[in-house]
């Protein structure tokens, strides 16, 4: 093969490559733009990976039946999803609780023990009966019913501090939307945001249940 010939072929190759690449759109990661993969693009989780794993927090509040609920003692060793929100939240709270319920429904044969704990950021409105009625909209298909916790404002704020989330403001209306997943080893490596889909949650559960 002559040098001209190879030069022609090289030019062709370059041309094809350049055009071929320009014809191809940038790959869409499929991740919502506002879900930052703290672990970087290489994170194995679809949700938000904690750079430093969070330990299962200690706090005691009142559950939806009116009984005291020591979060650590009740959930120790059990894969647990902890979320802070309020029942009058029109937007992200029903969305994420719905996604969680949908995901848990899909994995209930393999992970029937997963516990969801919802802590109100608006205790003035969200009494035990209000929480009970609210959560019943989500957990009817699930082997383990959701737990709803309330208490006085300092107690619910202390729970948020213990869990390491932003403490809610404006009567609980500005609140963290992290649903943190503590595995059976009592540490959390991942949290899900409101726009994390149930498919993402199903993907992450086996990776973080221990």
């Amino acid at each position: 093969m002559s040098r001209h010939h190879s030069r022609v072929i090289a030019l062709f190759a370059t041309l094809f490559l350049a055009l071929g690449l320009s014809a191809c759109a940038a790959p869409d990661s499929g991740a919502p733009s506002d879900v930052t993969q703290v672990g970087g693009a290489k994170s194995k989780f679809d949700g938000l990976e904690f750079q430093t794993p969070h330990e299962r927090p200690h706090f005691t509040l009142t559950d939806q039946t009116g009984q005291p609920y020591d979060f650590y003692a009740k959930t120790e060793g059990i894969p647990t999803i902890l979320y802070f929100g309020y029942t009058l939240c029109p937007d992200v709270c029903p969305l994420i609780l719905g996604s969680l319920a949908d995901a848990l429904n899909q994995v209930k044969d393999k992970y029937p023990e997963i516990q969801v704990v919802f802590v109100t950021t608006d205790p003035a409105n969200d009494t035990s009966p209000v929480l009970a009625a609210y959560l019943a909209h989500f957990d009817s298909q699930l082997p383990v019913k959701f737990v709803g916790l309330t208490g006085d404002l300092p107690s619910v704020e202390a729970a948020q501090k213990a869990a390491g989330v932003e403490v809610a403001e404006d009567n609980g209306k500005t609140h963290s939307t992290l649903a943190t997943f503590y595995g059976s080893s009592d540490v959390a490596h991942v949290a899900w945001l409101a726009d994390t889909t149930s498919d993402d949650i199903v993907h992450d559960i086996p990776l973080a249940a221990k």
Partner: protein
Amino acid sequence: MTSPTGTTRRGLPMRLVVPVFAIALGIFAFVKGFDSPPKPAAAPVVPASATRAGDIAVYGAYVREPASPQTAAAYLVITNVGSKTDTLSSVSSGASATAMLHDVNTSGSTTAAPSNAEQAEGAETMTATPNVPIKPGQTITLKPGAGHIMLEGLIGPIVPGQTVNLLLNFNRAGGVVVVAPVIAIGATPPKY
């Protein structure tokens, strides 16, 4: 570099190189379907199902079945297909005592960028956005985490299969009545 005859030893004449390139480019252009850049002045495309009033088109509306007996949220997409800015100045609904726009991202980007570290960490806020200007050609998408119409003081239960009427008032286009289907708590929003 070139031989005195102007041909390579294997016989591809150098004078053919340029035509061959031209043909290759032609084939590419054909295959790519003359992928010209979009004209910025082109009118935005809205679905045929959109509700129109003047230069405003509203579509993709839905209400998620609420878990609270008191509040629900409606979502929709608004496109201004005209050449003048219009403003969404109020919303109301027959399903609730009050309706209010919250957290609408009016920057024109399709996704709400977290405005601070708190939001990047997933904080939710509830800020009223009473006036939403919509520039010519702009599309405003209300979606979870990026704006909603909050329905407060629900008049009765809102369950899947029902529809909720929403009245949107625009300064130029006037009133637009949008019929929003109610979807189940875990359901995905309707496609448009």
